[in-house]
């Protein structure tokens, strides 16, 4: 209470004219925001233009909205099939990532064992290796083990390549949970795994939600593995489908943009529904309680 009063008294009185420095910073931030939003708006209204209209003036508004672009985009790319493929691969990968990240993150946070530092470094190292350097060896492995071109093919690299960050997030979150809770559970006779799943797992739900949502975006948008590891057209994912709008020397931009909007829709909805959780989750674990 005292602290609050003190803080209030420090606040400067309202001024009629805003502080020019603050104004400048706000203007800058507004400009920055606009630079992020305007391209999205542009994609939105451009998706309603005819190709000739787009070519004539790329910035103008559509004279008569062409909703047929959306229908064409759905037909051309077989959007339902693409979305189903993406959804299946993404959903299962996210479950795998979240589960492995929880167990590994928990263990690295709570247990001391030989080689722990090496293990953490190994996971960190995973963030540094560029995917393109690994495409050929991974392609060979998959081909030789008969794992390429199956409905589950992409799940394996998606889980493997997306583990680093989630493990770090979970680990730092678990470190923030007071050990006393686990000690109390142990005194009550709960085993290690019992504590891990029945006591700490519910507490870790916020960070696991964050992990799941972040990795959902990553898997949904992945392109390189999907391109190289899949040959069967019926297995293609949404990012691959966007190439249907390009030919060697020209691109149907309005249809491509309609396709992009459609492919962004699921991730955008998920983002809006869960945005507060993502932010909360990323912040959690940042401050040690």
């Amino acid at each position: 209470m005292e602290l609050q009063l003190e803080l209030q008294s420090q606040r400067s009185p309202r001024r009629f004219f805003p502080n020019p420095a603050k104004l400048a910073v706000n203007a800058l931030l507004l400009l920055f925001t606009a630079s992020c939003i305007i391209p999205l708006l542009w994609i939105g209204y451009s998706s309603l233009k005819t190709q000739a209209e787009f070519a004539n003036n790329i910035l103008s508004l559509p004279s008569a909205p062409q909703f047929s672009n959306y229908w064409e985009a759905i037909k051309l790319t077989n959007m339902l099939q693409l979305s189903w493929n993406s959804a299946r691969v993404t959903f299962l990968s996210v479950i795998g990532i979240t589960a492995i990240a929880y167990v590994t993150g928990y263990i690295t946070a709570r247990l001391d064992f030989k080689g722990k530092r090496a293990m953490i470094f190994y996971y960190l190292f995973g963030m540094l290796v560029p995917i393109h350097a690994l495409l050929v060896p991974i392609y060979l492995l998959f081909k030789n083990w008969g794992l390429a071109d199956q409905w589950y093919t992409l799940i394996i690299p998606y889980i493997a390549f997306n583990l680093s960050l989630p493990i770090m997030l979970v680990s730092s979150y678990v470190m923030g949970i007071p050990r006393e809770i686990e000690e109390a559970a142990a005194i009550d006779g709960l085993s290690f795994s019992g504590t891990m799943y029945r006591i700490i797992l519910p507490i870790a739900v916020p960070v696991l939600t964050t992990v799941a949502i972040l990795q959902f975006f990553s898997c949904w948008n992945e392109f390189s593995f999907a391109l190289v590891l899949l040959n069967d057209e019926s297995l293609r994912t949404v990012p691959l489908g966007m190439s249907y709008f390009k030919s060697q020397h020209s691109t149907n931009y309005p249809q491509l943009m309609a396709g992009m909007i459609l492919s962004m829709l699921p991730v955008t909805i998920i983002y809006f529904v869960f945005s507060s959780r993502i932010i909360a989750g990323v912040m959690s674990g940042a401050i040690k309680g």
Partner: protein
Amino acid sequence: MNKRSFMLGLMVVASSVLSACGSGENEESAAESGNTITISLMHRYQESNIGKSPEDTAVLDGLKRFREDYPDIEIIEEQLQNEDYSIKAQALAAADDMPDVFIVPGSWMTNFVDNEIVLPLDKELDKRPEWRDGYRAGTLDAGTREGQIYGIPIAAGPTHLIYYNADLFASIGYDQFPASWTDLMDAGDKLAEKGINLFSYGDKSKGYAMSSWISALTDRINGPEWTESILNGDGAKFTDEGFIQGIGIMSELAKAGYLNKDLNSVDNDTMVNYYFEGRSAAFVSGIWSAMNIVNNAPDEIKASTRVAVFPGVENGLGNPLSSSGGAGVYYSVNSGVEAGEKLDAIMTMLEYMTGSDSAKLMAEVGGFPAYDPGDFDTGKLHPVALAAYEASAAADATKIFDLWFDASIVEVLNTGIQGVMAGSRTPEQLAEETQQAYETFLNQP
């Protein structure tokens, strides 16, 4: 041996992984089950481009006809978009796991031949002389190494044509495209007064300058013998006056302000859009832009577009009407395919996809096939597409540098020309740098 590239290294890694795995699946998949022939085919032609792109339309029509005529042959086809194809094909080639039939851009051919990824096709083509001899002169060249044909060309066509707005040129007193460089500069000046660029230009992807400008200009000035001499290491130099003059012409157009200022940061699509918007009176591009104009240009622009090539150069040694061109992309066959029924079937399929009937269709929908289509129905062609076709057929095709020069030289030229166009280096400096890269290449053991 030393010339073998990065890909070979990758292949060594790849093969060691293969042997470590000790799997025999590759052999299994290569074997044909029973009497059915299975052909795997990967290319960059897509169903979704039928009707929009002449090449896609013609090639896929050929494939469809082949499937109808040979229902017993199974084709496992993978269609990919251009850039995606490059990524995937290079990964598969490094893993030595290319499909039976695939596309090889001319600039990859040396690498693929050196690494024995592609099969020589001479013997097979000799069995089909009528088909083999139907290709336009020079179109097989970039798919040929040391006298052996490794690739069947698909489309040819100039990479240098000028599409210009006749109404805009008429408004400054030119009834046709300026016939000399002095006139062209004069037209540039008059257009600049009206706030219009002479040419729109877009070299963001690096390679446009070389494809559509440098190859044609240098040939005008130096003649084709110069290019041959460079390729054979017979004494021609990039520091020769003719090459510097060609680059100088481009640099002058930029310096005079006759091109759009963002010339290095916009791509080809934007360059064409500037023309559609009336911000430029012309643009230089390949024959592929003809159908882009027919399909996408505003009506008044479409109606006033005509086709030309660069004016001749005074005292130039080359054909004043020549245009850089030829085939750039080839169908090749995996070196693992053995002579016999399967190879026969593959050759027949390729004839369906690139031969006479397919060529006719490609020409009728506005493309320029590598195979001479003979007489075809021009009735359906838009005048712009027809003009581009006629200019292409009339032009004397000369070599496109990026298909022929070593990648190290191409890279220096592609990057350096951006500097010249931006005014940060002179044509002489670029010539000097290119010559250095060329000498390094020549001195390789």
